[in-house]
């Protein structure tokens, strides 16, 4: 008699990025850019049999109140170049990165990603993002030329163009679309994966539609089981109209965690990390993003400002903003601060921005994660640790064995390519 096969969890490892999730003030925090940090992180992920490593990218340093934002980690290597180097020190781990479609041309990107896939033996993945902002465009010769409503048109066109080149078998390609007109032959045959795995992370209606049509994996940011299930059903429900089956997309919500030998210790660790993530200065900066004005005179350990937000102001540039009415946010925060017994500015920011997804002993965290996936709130997770380079160590040493004991996670890689790990057919 064979056991029914349990739904398997997929895991990606997000190299800690340039935001306040990444803690730099901890004694265990190492270099964000030395190659040794990437080697440590990648090898840990591979030891934990993760599906893939992931690197984010932003092409202009963030600014806050007209100056380069100086409170968070800043600076990272070129995504494709460091992924090629990581391929040299790993054997199975998938290698994913964000590359912006606005400031690159399809022929060059197609060749760079195909090169990574060939040189890594079929482990490349591309998270397509599209930016319309003139702020980032100032670093590029064509500037910020894209209308916001054309973002997904460009993403689709560049993907169609790249795919035509990847699968051309070096036959001549002639491509014409609204944004691209080019012709010629590609320099490479189809890659070990056919072409790289495609990742999408937009959450708007257009973003979900693009994902349902094209993506192999989707990064989401829906925390609760209910929100996760709603997204999961919505996204997978869009796939049949493109002739795709639900299992052809792996949905991975961004996930943070805190561990301890006991539940109480895990909660203490979670609390400590949250305080490290939200320094007094960071708390004020977060507040300024909502208020749209200089609040540097306020005490982070004191109450929220009495003044109302400047609703029209944008004082942070170079990061994704979640458009919400600042006055409404301020009102909700004041109510929350009062309801919790008078939270200070810093306590309020910690409460609203920094809560970890899973907190507990390794056994508890494994059980929570497994339940989340078995209830179809996702197909796995992209873990976002708070430390470089050791942020995955404890998870891999302690949680992975628990997930394996639950029968929900692989005990060995079953093939050499990322498509093998994700259970995807070759295009």
């Amino acid at each position, binding site marked *: 008699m064979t056991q029914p096969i349990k739904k398997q969890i997929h895991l990606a490892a997000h190299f800690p990025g340039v935001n306040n999730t990444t803690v730099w003030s901890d004694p265990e925090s190492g270099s964000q850019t030395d*190659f040794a940090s990437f080697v440590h992180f990648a090898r840990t992920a591979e030891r934990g049999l993760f599906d893939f490593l992931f690197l984010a990218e932003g092409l202009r340093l963030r600014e806050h109140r007209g100056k380069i934002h100086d409170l968070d980690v800043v600076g990272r290597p070129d995504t494709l*170049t460091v992924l090629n*180097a990581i391929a*040299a020190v790993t054997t199975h781990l998938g290698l994913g990165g964000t590359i912006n479609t606005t400031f690159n041309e399809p022929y*060059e990107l197609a060749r760079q990603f195909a090169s990574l896939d060939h*040189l890594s*033996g079929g482990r490349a993945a591309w998270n397509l993002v599209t930016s319309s902002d003139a702020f980032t465009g100032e670093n590029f010769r064509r500037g910020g030329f894209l209308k916001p409503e054309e973002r997904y048109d460009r993403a689709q066109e560049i993907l169609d163009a790249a795919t035509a080149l990847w699968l051309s078998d070096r036959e001549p390609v002639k491509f014409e679309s609204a944004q691209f007109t080019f*012709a010629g032959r590609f320099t490479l045959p189809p890659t070990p994966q056919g072409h790289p795995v495609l990742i999408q992370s937009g959450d708007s209606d257009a973003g979900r539609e693009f994902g349902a049509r094209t993506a192999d994996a989707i990064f989401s940011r829906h925390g609760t089981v209910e929100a996760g299930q709603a997204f999961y059903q919505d996204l997978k429900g869009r796939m049949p109209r493109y002739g795709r089956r639900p299992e052809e997309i792996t949905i991975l919500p961004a996930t943070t965690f805190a561990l301890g030998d006991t539940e109480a210790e895990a909660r203490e660790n979670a609390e400590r990390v949250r305080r490290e993530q939200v320094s007094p200065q960071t708390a004020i900066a977060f507040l300024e993003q909502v208020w749209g004005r200089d609040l540097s005179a306020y005490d982070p350990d004191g109450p929220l400002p009495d003044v109302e937000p400047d609703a029209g102001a944008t004082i942070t540039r170079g990061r994704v903003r979640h458009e919400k009415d600042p006055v409404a946010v301020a009102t909700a925060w004041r109510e929350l601060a009062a309801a919790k017994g008078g939270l200070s500015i810093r306590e309020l920011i910690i409460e609203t921005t920094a809560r970890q997804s899973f907190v507990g002993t390794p056994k508890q965290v494994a059980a929570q994660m497994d339940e989340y996936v078995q209830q179809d709130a996702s197909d796995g997770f992209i873990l976002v640790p708070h430390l470089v380079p050791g942020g995955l160590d404890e998870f891999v040493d302690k949680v992975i064995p628990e997930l394996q004991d639950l029968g929900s996670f692989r005990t060995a890689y079953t093939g050499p390519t990322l498509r093998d790990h994700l259970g995807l057919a070759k295009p």
Partner: protein
Amino acid sequence: MVGDDRVVGEVMGAHAYVAVELGTSGEPSAAHHLAAVQAVADTGADLVFWADSFVPPEQAAPPTLDAVAIAARAAPVVAGIGLVPTVTVTHTEPFHVSKAIATLDLVSQGRAGWQVAVSRTEEEARLFGRKPAAPPAQLWQEAAEAVEVVVRLWDSWEDDAVIRDVATGRYVDRDRLHYIDFVGEFFSVKGPSITPRSPQAHPLVVVRDEPDALPVVARWADVVRVAAPDLAAAHTAREQVRAVVTGAGRDPDAVAVLLDVTPDGPDPVEAVRGGAADGVTLLGGPDPGLVGRLAELGLRRPVAGSATLRERFGLPRPANYFAGAHR
């Protein structure tokens, strides 16, 4: 006796550089390309060049991989040799070139270089569909701007920009990050780079000698590659390179001229001893005995295995353009 001093200097202190040029073509696998780089490293050569362009090889010919990708794939596993891919700047954004080469420097612990090149053909222009092919003079004027942007971006972070000052909550000192505010005829770039200053700060800049490239050679090249039909012509080319470098206010002894040598071309040892070149680039693959022969003649100084590529070329780590006076 200026001339004699120069000869003595060359014999005692000089280093006859040995480079090998590989292609990006062949079976598109790590195994194939790593074997080729390792074979060069095993001969004790100073650096490997990867010729590259967007021009698609004939369909029946071996495919070509991206040169930076091959170099980065090799960096962690092939030690003791400089890694110098060609990256063209006609269709590629200088912002991307800057961080790619800086990252190659990071993952190779200071062994990166960059051979600057332009895309000349209509065939390449059609692969991008943004602009027609341009004459060489214009391509190199544009390239001059691109190189300036790349080098300025390399300096846009001071070495000590990351401060991790818990007392003030600051990870980085923003006064040590610099907008480059480049505005040229062809494009403008704001900066700073997203990538911190690399181990060498300025990976080795390599330019091939051609008339329209001379302004770039004069201002930016650390290494100049020369092709010449014979040693006399090579000698003349080297003198011209040294003259334009001097004319740009730089020290010509800080710029090495490497002569391309084919298997049936001039003897590499004669090229160096006769003063026709500061070193050679072997186009026909590695020569296992060459470094040894040059050493026996006193034409090689010892090089530490951990040396950066700049150190191999006797070049200091450069001061930051934006620090101090320009701050």
